[in-house]
């Protein structure tokens, strides 16, 4: 059950709750989508789902970032996301970015110069800028969704135009 009682019109609980401040959410999600569009979709999707695990956002696993799906998102990686440090499924670049995303999500003020330098061995400085911004909007959306107590749905929210439903265990990937 959700943590707040207000609802706007919308096809899913996510749409109904975030839609209560429709203008804010429209502005936020425009910035969110633009920020994610500047980075590697596969990379940010892996980071989003790892951050969701850390923040306790079950809802996040009910949908997938459509550009990542279109780019060949591997569900096996998602199934093994918590063992990314040692799993052979993940590249060194993916490991470095997911580890950084974890830090960003848990306590960004603890990120040190050497943490950034280590990440810059895998991505260039301009990409770092866009990557950090994408982590921030992802972090905000996850925190709000958890705080509102939004539960996983069977269809992707209409207001998350860049997301599609996650594949169920016995269904093919839904590609938007």
């Amino acid at each position, binding site marked *: 059950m959700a943590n707040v009682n207000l609802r706007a019109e919308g096809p899913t609980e996510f749409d109904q709750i975030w839609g209560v*401040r429709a203008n804010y959410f429209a502005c936020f999600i425009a910035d969110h989508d633009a920020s994610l569009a500047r980075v590697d979709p596969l990379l940010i999707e892996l980071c989003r789902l790892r951050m969701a695990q850390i923040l*306790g956002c079950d809802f996040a696993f009910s949908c997938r970032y459509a550009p990542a799906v279109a780019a060949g998102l591997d569900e096996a990686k998602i199934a093994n996301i918590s063992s990314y440090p040692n799993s052979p499924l993940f590249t060194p670049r993916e490991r470095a970015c997911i580890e950084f995303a974890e830090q960003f999500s848990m306590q960004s*003020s603890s990120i040190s110069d050497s943490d950034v330098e280590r990440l810059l061995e895998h991505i260039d400085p301009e990409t770092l800028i*866009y990557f950090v911004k994408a982590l*921030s909007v992802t972090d905000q959306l996850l925190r*709000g969704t*958890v*705080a*509102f107590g939004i539960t996983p749905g069977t269809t992707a929210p209409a207001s998350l135009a860049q997301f599609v439903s996650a594949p169920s265990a016995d269904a093919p990937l839904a590609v938007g």
Partner: protein
Amino acid sequence: MSTKPRIPAELAAGFLMLGGGDTSPAARIAIPGELSRLAGIPIASNGSIQLDPVVHECIRLFNANYQGCEYCQNARQAVAVQAGLDEDMVSQLTRFETSSLPDHIKAALRIVDRISSAPQMLTADVLDTARGYFTEQEIYDIIILSCFTTSSKVAITLGVDPGKEASSRLFYPTDEAYPQSEDLQQAIEQLTKQGILVDESGDGFDPIGTKPGTTSSPA
């Protein structure tokens, strides 16, 4: 945490905490002006977060401390100061549970604290306690504001926090940091009718830490 840039100067050029205007990569990722109007300014404009300005500013400053954003920690919203925010309150935010802050501010900060640290720990009892002081819409807005005020994590992580030198002053709603719009202008006119100073031209109070000349709340 760093105020020393971790990205090359040419990529950071033109970065501002609120809004941009430049086309450098860092300026491109600034918080959009309209988003700032809707969530970042403690005044009631069309479609915006609608919280008491003191509560709004306490939430912002609590998160500024939590995230370690020097720029955010040292700015003060003039509307909130006029509504009663003072430096004694600000000094108690970090340890709010054992502070002498009003109970309704403690209730709001419990929500913010959970969302900033571990949102899955935002339990029903925390929300129910807050419902004793706030409407359901205000609870909703506290949650949104708690999320929005984590935006400074970007500047901190990249080492482009402009620091206290850039922010140690009162910010009026007419400040050039905020993109002007018809909605904001209407809200400013409403404040003026209530006797709230909306720019630095008015006489009365100013330096951070002084008691305001009026306690009227625009909320």
